[in-house]
């Protein structure tokens, strides 16, 4: 059967709302926060127009949104919510409960800076603070990837080997509110792809009553957490399997990361999400001038594909990791430190430096990317990096 090729124009949020419409979950708990609000707003019109069967629950906070989603999911429903920034921070304690209960909740997180100072624009400080909550994290560059990741997230989360919640992350405003081309997968193919949710345990199975959330003391707690870690380990296979299967209905390939002109690249930028698209333009420009530059755009941060990233970067001479969030460790951003740790056992290590960039929606232009590649070139010639961590485009 031929693949769909018809281009449509949608914002990132509209595309994700359409993905959720095609998934048609049983329950959505909705609470608005910029720049996520569009998703549940679009979705409420789908509900009002009878296009979906979803029970939509409006709640009074993100804490309640995640609580309601957890309750619905434990009951046996396919349940979702969506959030950004302070909203993700407010639901933080529930994030651990969703993963600890092994509930396969797929949630779009539209990346936005966490206050203070208060700001509504994109950076990754919200989801970076959630890396240790037991959620799988998948990032997308544009509306197309956000849409594709949303559909795959459901299947990854619900796989019996995984049973972990998934955050589908993409950039606030830059992706969420920009109209772009994308291609949707036909409704019936998405329906078939995600299938029916068959939970192993559910509270609404009245013939087989169970208990969710009992007190687990030191004698069993470690075992429960070891299981969770096994689920994350299993996700390493499942994410790739689901990507392969999704390619069959979409024609689009996904994996741990996207390498752009990476094979013989000596100077490489590693950067997530929309900024990677801007970097591609600069890679093209510099390649046209004979410069051996490339780009690596991570897609999955949990589980962290350490081996795959090390392998992909083993030929590079200098690597700039660009993190769109501070960690305040004084040792660089989250991706930088994890990637450096991944190289600990590697026989060949490139020089590595870190840029903290794009905070609070600071526009990241081709000029900024060019500056980074120029500094990488100087590092390569010098044989060392002149500065480990740099705040890009900050006035002094």
């Amino acid at each position, binding site marked *: 059967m031929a693949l769909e090729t018809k281009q449509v*124009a949608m914002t990132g949020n509209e595309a994700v709302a359409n993905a959720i419409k095609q998934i048609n979950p049983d329950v959505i708990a909705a609470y608005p926060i910029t720049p996520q609000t569009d998703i549940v707003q679009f979705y409420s019109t789908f509900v009002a127009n009878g296009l979906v069967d979803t029970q939509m629950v409006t709640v009074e906070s993100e804490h309640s949104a995640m609580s309601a989603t957890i309750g619905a999911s434990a009951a046996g429903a396919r349940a979702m919510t969506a959030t950004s920034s302070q909203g993700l921070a407010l639901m933080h304690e529930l994030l651990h409960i969703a993963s600890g209960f092994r509930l396969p909740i797929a949630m779009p997180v539209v990346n936005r800076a966490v206050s203070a100072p208060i700001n509504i624009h994109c950076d990754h400080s919200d989801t970076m603070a959630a890396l240790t909550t037991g959620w799988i994290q998948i990032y997308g560059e544009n509306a197309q990837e956000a849409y594709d990741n949303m559909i795959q997230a459901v299947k990854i989360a619900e796989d019996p080997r995984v049973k972990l919640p998934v955050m589908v992350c993409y950039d606030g405003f830059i992706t969420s509110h920009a109209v*772009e081309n994308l291609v949707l997968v036909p409704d019936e193919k998405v329906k078939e792809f995600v299938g029916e949710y068959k939970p192993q345990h559910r509270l609404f199975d009245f013939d087989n009553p169970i208990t969710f959330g009992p007190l687990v003391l030191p004698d069993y707690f470690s075992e429960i957490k070891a299981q969770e870690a096994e689920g994350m380990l299993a996700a390493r296979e499942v994410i790739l399997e689901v990507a392969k299967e999704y390619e069959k209905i979409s024609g689009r390939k996904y994996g741990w990361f996207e390498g752009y002109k990476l094979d013989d690249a000596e100077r490489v930028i590693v950067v997530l999400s929309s900024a990677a698209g801007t970097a591609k333009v600069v890679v093209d420009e510099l390649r046209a001038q004979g410069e051996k530059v490339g780009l690596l755009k991570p897609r999955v941060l949990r589980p962290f594909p350490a081996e795959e990233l090390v392998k992909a970067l083993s030929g590079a001479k200098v690597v700039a990791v660009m993190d769109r969030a501070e960690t305040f460790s004084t040792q660089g951003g989250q991706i930088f430190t994890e990637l450096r740790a991944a190289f600990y056992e590697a026989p060949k290590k490139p020089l590595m430096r870190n840029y903290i960039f794009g905070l609070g929606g600071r526009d990241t232009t081709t000029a900024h990317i060019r500056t980074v590649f120029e500094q990488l070139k100087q590092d390569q010639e010098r044989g060392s990096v002149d500065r480990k961590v740099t705040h890009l485009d900050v006035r002094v």
Partner: protein
Amino acid sequence: MSNLVEIRWHARGGQGAKTASTLLAEAALSAGKYVQGFPEYGPERMGAPILAFNRIGDEPITIHSNVDNPDVVMVLDPSLIGPVNVAEGLKDGGVIIVNTDLDPVTVKQKLGVPGNFTVATVDASGIAVATIGRDIPNTPMIGALLKLREFLPFESFMERMRHDLERKFQGRQAIIEGNLSAMRRAYQEVKQA
């Protein structure tokens, strides 16, 4: 990237620049183009100066920053000339299209910046009042744009536009026809210097 047209819209909150950039993107997409349409979100209020952007090309567009070096600048409110440097970063050979009843030579003098660019003017507000019945200059400005940058054939673009407007304003025929004739008039009446 070949044939990529980058557009920056200057307007005041409420004049429909965001809608214009979205409509233009959707219609260009229907005509087979790769598109982006997005506003710059700030502390936007009715009347505050705002920006919106378009990129339209023949190949997939991966750049995700604002348009700093536009080919075309669209000024929906002439009172922005002065408080805002609308010509900033304009590419060599670019064009600035202004909604005003003044002639382009006068507007070019008012701009008072050197450089190799064209100034075009169209009374989009006057046209909008006459055709739509309200001062919503965004769609006539798209008409003027198509005259100055023929990246899409006008008549087929109008077909796409009709289709998109019909979807947006279901059944409200007066608004749909008003917008289409506003675009057609602006296409015919835009003047350049």
